[in-house]
């Protein structure tokens, strides 16, 4: 079950392959036999109505849940494949280099912006400091620390917060905190970045900034991004590929153009023949974004 995306051209090399992922909580089936791929250097969006199981997929990927059934394979060039479902949570971040953000903001509120970004580079620093023994005396540690601070400053520049480096993270406005979270995730030097509703609660301007940041990360840092998002203006503009879940099952998978016109997706969002049920915001987004898609809906 690794066929190419429907309606999607020859994509990049697969980075993450999810096969037959199933997650049951007692009698409740949160995810039912979902398979998809996320390619390197692409933005893959997971969308679907509330309760479709999107966040559960993330929780399986990052070790919060052990999947009931399924295999999650991460393949890097020149490395043996890594099976995420077998790893402990913190190793997924340090060995497999999968980073994630949450729907609600989880910065370290009482640490400065810079510290938030440096603490994300903890493992490298621990090794360089001889597990703190040498670090206390300052041998061979300063150089690595400087590198970490440089990387942190680089990302602060990318999100335009470099002049607030020494403020506590909780003093930032909401939109900036969101982008700081993404910067922090990037400081772990991930190969796969998982973002859970990064645009939630952002105003249109902040949302546009976020689009730029994500496109920049994909193009310049050349990593795979997996994105859960409700904001269709984000999804449709920047995704290379969209996976649609509904009631824990995958109902569509392909590029934005394909998904937009897929009858199964329209049904899931509209309900059969009941156009009025569609939330206004979705209707508006689906019909204003690009002429091609609008045709399929009306």
């Amino acid at each position, binding site marked *: 079950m690794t066929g190419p995306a429907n309606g999607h051209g020859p994509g990049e090399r697969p980075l993450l392959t999810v096969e037959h992922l199933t997650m049951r909580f007692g009698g409740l089936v949160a995810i039912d036999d979902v398979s998809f791929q996320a390619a390197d250097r692409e933005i893959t969006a997971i969308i679907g109505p509330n309760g479709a199981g999107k966040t559960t997929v993330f929780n399986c990927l990052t070790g919060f849940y052990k999947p009931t059934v399924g295999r999650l394979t991460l393949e890097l060039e020149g490395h043996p494949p890594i099976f995420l479902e077998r790893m402990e949570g913190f190793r997924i971040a*340090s060995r497999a280099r999968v980073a994630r953000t949450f729907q609600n903001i989880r910065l370290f509120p009482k*640490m400065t912006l810079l510290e938030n970004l440096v603490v994300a580079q903890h493992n490298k620093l621990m090794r360089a400091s001889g597990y703190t023994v040498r670090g*206390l005396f300052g041998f061979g540690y300063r150089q690595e620390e400087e590198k970490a601070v440089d990387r942190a400053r680089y990302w602060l520049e990318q999100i335009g917060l470099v002049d607030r480096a020494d403020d506590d993270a909780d003093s930032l406005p909401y939109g900036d905190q969101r982008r700081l979270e993404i910067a922090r995730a990037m400081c772990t030097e991930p190969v796969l970045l998982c973002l859970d509703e990064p645009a939630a609660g952002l105003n249109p301007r902040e949302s546009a900034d976020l689009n730029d940041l994500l496109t920049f990360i994909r193009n310049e840092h050349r990593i795979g991004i997996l994105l859960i998002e409700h904001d269709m203006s984000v999804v449709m503009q920047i995704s290379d590929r969209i996976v649609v879940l509904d009631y824990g099952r995958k109902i569509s998978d392909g590029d934005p153009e394909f998904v937009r016109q897929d009858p199964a997706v329209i049904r899931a969002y509209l309900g059969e023949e009941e156009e009025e049920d569609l939330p206004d915001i979705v209707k508006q987004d689906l019909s204003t974004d690009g002429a091609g898609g609008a045709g399929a809906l009306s």
Partner: protein
Amino acid sequence: MYHVAYFLDQLINGVTLGAIYGLVAIGYTMVYGIIGMINFAHGEIFMIGTFVSLIVFLLLGLAGGVWLPLAILIVLLAAMLFTAIYGWTLERVAYRRLRASPRLAALITAIGMSIFLQNYVQLLQGARNKPLPPQITGGVEVVNTTNRAGEAYAVSLSFLQILIIVLTIVLMVVFTLLITRTALGRAQRACEQDRGMAALLGINVDRTISLTFVIGASLAAVAGLIFMLRYGATDFFVGFLTGLKAFTAAVLGGIGSLPGAMLGGLLIGLIEVFFAGYFNLEYKDVATFTILVLVLIFRPTGLLGKPDIEKV
């Protein structure tokens, strides 16, 4: 003149006692900060520190005269090492499995471990008081005057007290650097604020918590050595009262706050000594624990603690 001299004498004694409480209080406050439990067995870790110091001093004595500063250094390192092992084991065996349990379970386990360690040392070392002959003697006379009865009254700052104050200051500075400047310290603060997120950034949370216990235990070992040098005797029960007072110090400073623990330790040391010196020696412990009650009633966040904001 006599009054000033007497005051000065109490001040010196208070600061040295405060050093002991402060060093032990850091262990309470760090553990509380990172896993939200009161490690009531921490006083026993301090008690083990006193015993290791005593044993190593006696062994060095048997081995023949070792140059005193070297001997103190050896005792210091040995005490830190052994108590660190105890601290690590305590967390690994008794607390780690209970981390997801209700707080009460961890608290009761801590009290259980405290009683266990007391009895364990009593069994191995006997219940009798173990003396250590004074190791560091002499001092500098600061004031020389006469008391009301016309007898000579000299206030001196002993070399031991100088050593205690210098050692404590050096350790506090090293410790502050460790927490604010190193990767380990940052990881610790990150774990305090959001353990789940710290794990997602690749921080080994279990190891960070273990190291917290190790650092706390090492500082308690230093307090144990100071106690041994200052009071010259220990038994299996010394950790109980010292532990409770250090806990009071941590609460007074604001539990979870590191500068608070240092400040609280100093204040409790001074309060205890001044109360004993000016009011009543017998009731000095009452004074300390009255402070605990008052702080808990009127300022539960302590002097430097921040109010605990409910996480959403």
